[in-house]
C-alpha cells in the first residue's frame, strides 16, 4: 500500500497546519430562501457572534470580519451557505463552531458517509485519502467489555484509495464500523499546471482545499449542496406529516439498523440526554420491552419530532414544517456511533 501525499505545490507540513489551504464550511441556514431573509439573518448573525458584516460586491456574497479573522460567506445557493476562509484551521474551526451554535436556525451540513464514499467517483475525481471514525462508546455502558469495533479511527493514503476502501468493507475487518469521516480527492485537469483542486470533504460539512482552481472547488460545492438540498427537501416534502390540499400527507421515516450496543435502553437514554453528539432533548419512555418512544426537541433548530426505537428500526415522525436536516444528522450519528450500515428504508 503506497502512501501518496498530494503534490500540488504546498510544502510538506504546511498542509497539516492548514496555513495555505482554503477552508470551506457548508452551513444550513434555515428560513433564508429569499434575499431579504438572508440579509436579515446575516445581520442577526453578525451581532450575535461579534462579526462586522458587509456586502462583498457580488450578489449574495458577504464579508464577515472580526479582528484579523475574515470569512467570505456565499449565500447564492438558497438555504445552504458556503463559508470560506484562509485562517489557520484551529482558529477557523473555533469561529465556525461559534457561528453555527449562535442561532437555532443554523446547522452544519451533515454529508452522509455513503455519499462521501461515492463523491470522488460521482464528480469524476480520484480519491487520494479517506478516514474512518466509528465510536460506540458514547452510547455504550463503559462497564461492559469492548469488542474489536467499539471504536475505529483510521486515516489511509493509498494509490487507489477507493478500491482499498471497498476491500476493507468487503473483508469485514470492522463489522458495521466502516464509517467514512472524510475523503480527499483530486478533481479537474490531470496535468500539474492545469485547472484542478484537491479537496478533503468531512462529514460535518467542512472542506479543506488547495490546488489551482477555485472555480473547480466551487463547482463541486454547488453540486454537493444541490444533492444535499434534494435529500433534505425530500425528507421534508415527501415524509413531513401534516396537511396539504385538505388531506393528511407524509409518511414516517423508517431507518433500518441493527443496534450494535448491548444495552438499548442505556443507548436510548444517552441519545436524548441533550448532549453531544445527538443533541436531542427528550424524555424517552418504554412502550414495552425493546420498544422506546421519545418526543424530542432538536437542540439545533428547536423542531419537535417523535422517535420510536426498536431493535431493528427507528421510526421518525417528522411534522411538516420541521427541518429535514435533523433527520440527516440523526442518521449520520447512528452511522458513526451505532452501525455504519444504518440506512433509510423509505428514502
Amino acid at each position: 500500500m503506497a502512501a501518496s501525499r498530494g503534490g500540488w505545490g504546498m510544502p510538506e507540513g504546511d498542509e497539516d497546519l492548514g496555513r495555505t489551504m482554503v477552508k470551506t464550511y457548508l452551513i444550513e441556514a434555515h428560513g433564508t430562501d429569499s434575499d431579504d431573509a438572508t440579509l436579515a439573518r446575516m445581520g442577526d448573525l453578525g451581532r450575535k457572534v461579534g462579526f462586522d458584516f458587509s456586502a462583498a460586491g457580488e450578489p449574495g456574497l458577504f464579508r464577515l470580519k472580526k479582528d484579523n479573522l475574515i470569512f467570505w460567506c456565499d449565500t447564492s445557493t438558497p438555504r445552504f451557505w458556503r463559508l470560506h476562509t484562509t485562517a489557520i484551521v484551529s482558529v477557523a474551526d473555533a469561529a465556525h463552531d461559534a457561528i453555527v451554535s449562535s442561532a437555532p436556525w443554523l446547522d452544519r451540513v451533515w454529508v452522509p458517509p455513503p455519499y462521501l464514499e461515492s463523491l470522488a467517483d460521482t464528480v469524476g475525481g480520484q480519491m487520494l485519502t479517506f478516514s474512518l471514525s466509528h465510536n460506540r462508546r458514547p452510547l455504550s455502558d463503559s462497564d461492559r467489555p469492548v469488542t474489536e469495533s467499539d471504536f475505529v479511527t483510521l486515516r489511509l493514503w493509498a494509490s487507489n484509495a477507493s478500491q482499498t476502501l471497498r476491500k476493507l468493507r468487503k473483508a469485514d475487518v470492522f463489522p458495521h464500523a466502516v464509517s467514512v469521516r472524510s475523503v480527499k480527492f483530486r478533481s479537474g485537469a490531470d496535468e500539474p499546471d492545469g485547472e484542478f483542486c484537491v479537496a478533503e470533504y468531512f462529514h460535518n460539512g467542512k472542506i479543506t482545499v488547495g490546488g489551482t482552481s477555485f472555480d473547480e472547488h466551487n463547482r463541486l460545492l454547488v453540486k454537493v449542496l444541490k444533492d444535499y438540498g434534494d435529500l433534505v427537501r425530500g425528507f421534508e416534502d415527501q415524509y413531513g406529516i401534516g396537511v396539504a390540499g385538505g388531506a393528511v400527507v407524509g409518511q414516517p421515516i423508517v431507518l433500518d439498523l441493527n443496534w450494535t450496543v448491548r444495552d438499548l435502553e442505556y443507548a436510548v437514554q444517552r441519545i436524548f440526554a441533550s448532549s453531544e453528539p445527538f443533541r436531542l432533548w427528550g424524555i424517552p419512555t418504554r412502550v414495552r420491552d425493546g420498544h422506546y418512544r421519545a418526543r424530542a426537541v432538536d437542540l439545533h433548530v428547536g423542531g419537535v419530532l417523535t422517535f420510536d426505537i426498536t431493535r431493528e428500526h427507528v421510526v421518525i415522525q417528522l411534522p411538516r414544517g420541521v427541518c429535514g436536516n435533523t433527520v440527516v444528522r440523526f442518521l449520520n450519528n447512528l452511522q458513526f456511533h451505532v452501525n455504519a450500515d444504518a440506512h433509510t428504508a423509505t428514502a
Partner: protein
Amino acid sequence: MLRHLDLLNVFLALRFKQPGYPDCLSRLGYLVHSIGVTILLGDGTRLAPDVVAQAHNLTLLTEVKGGKELEGDQLARMNRVTPADLREFAYLPIHDVSVHVVHVLYVCNEESREALTAGIGVRRATVAGFDGKRFRLSGTPLPDAALARCLEEARVNEMASPLTIVPFDDKSPEEEVAAFVVPEIIAGLVAGAGTFGPADILASTHGVVHQLTQSTGSGSERPALLKRVKTTLERLATAELAEWIERVPKQPTYRFKQDLALDPARRTRDLQRLRAATARYLGSQQQPGTPVQLPLLFGAGEAEDDPDRKPDLE
C-alpha cells in the same frame, strides 16, 4: 381493551407505512380528509365522525368506539348524509355525486364488536373489531371489497405501535398530556420565543388535527383539548418548571423567565436540569396501572456529559 385514543391512532396508522403495521388505507389510495371535525349540514344536522377517509367513489365516515354502546341517534344522522352534503358542507372533493357512496365504519375493540353489531341491527354500517393483532369485520359488508380483504388479512406485529398522530385527548392522564406539552415549551426556549400560549402548544402537538380543523370547519374536541393544555401549563408554571416559565398577568399567555445559557457547557446543564424537572413532574403524575411507563432518566447527580467518560472523536 384499547382506549378511544388508541383505537383512533390504530385506524389512522392504516394511512401510513411503518414496519410491522398494515397500511391498508395507504395502499388502497385512501386520503384522510378530517379528524374530529364537526360537519354542519344544511338542515342543521351536526355530526362529528372521528375520521373521514375517501378513495375513488367511497367516503368512509369512521367512528371510533372505546366502549360497547352506540351514541343516541348518531348512526341515523350519519346514515342520512349524502355525497352532495359532503361536497357542499364538508368541502370534500366529490366530482360525481351520482356514483359516490357514503358508508359508516365503526372501529372498536374486538370485545365490543358483537354488541355494537347487534345495536346496529339492519342499519347500514360496518364494524371493525381490533384485538391488538388483527381486525374482524361484521355488520354491513364494506362497499370496498379490497379494503375489507386487506383489513381481514392484516396482521399487526406484536412489537409495532401505531404512530401518535393524535397524541392525547381530553381523557388522557396528565402525564400523557405533559409528555407532549413540555417538549413544545423546550422547543420555544431553544428557538428564543418570547411568549407562548395553550393554543400555540396545541397547534403543534395536534398539528395534523389542527390544520384539518382550520381548513374544513370547527374541531369538535378542540375546546376540551385546549383546557387540558391550559391546566398542564398552569401546573408546570407553579411547580417543576416555575424557575423557567410564568403566566403573563391577566393574559392567557406564558413567558420564559430566563434564557438558556449561551455557554455550551452551561446550556447543556440547563437542558439537563429541565429534563430532570420534567421527569419529576411526569413521575409525580403517574397513576398506578396506567399504560404509560415511567420516563427513562439517569439517576440524580450523574454527569451525563462527562467528556472524559464518553469521548466524541469530532
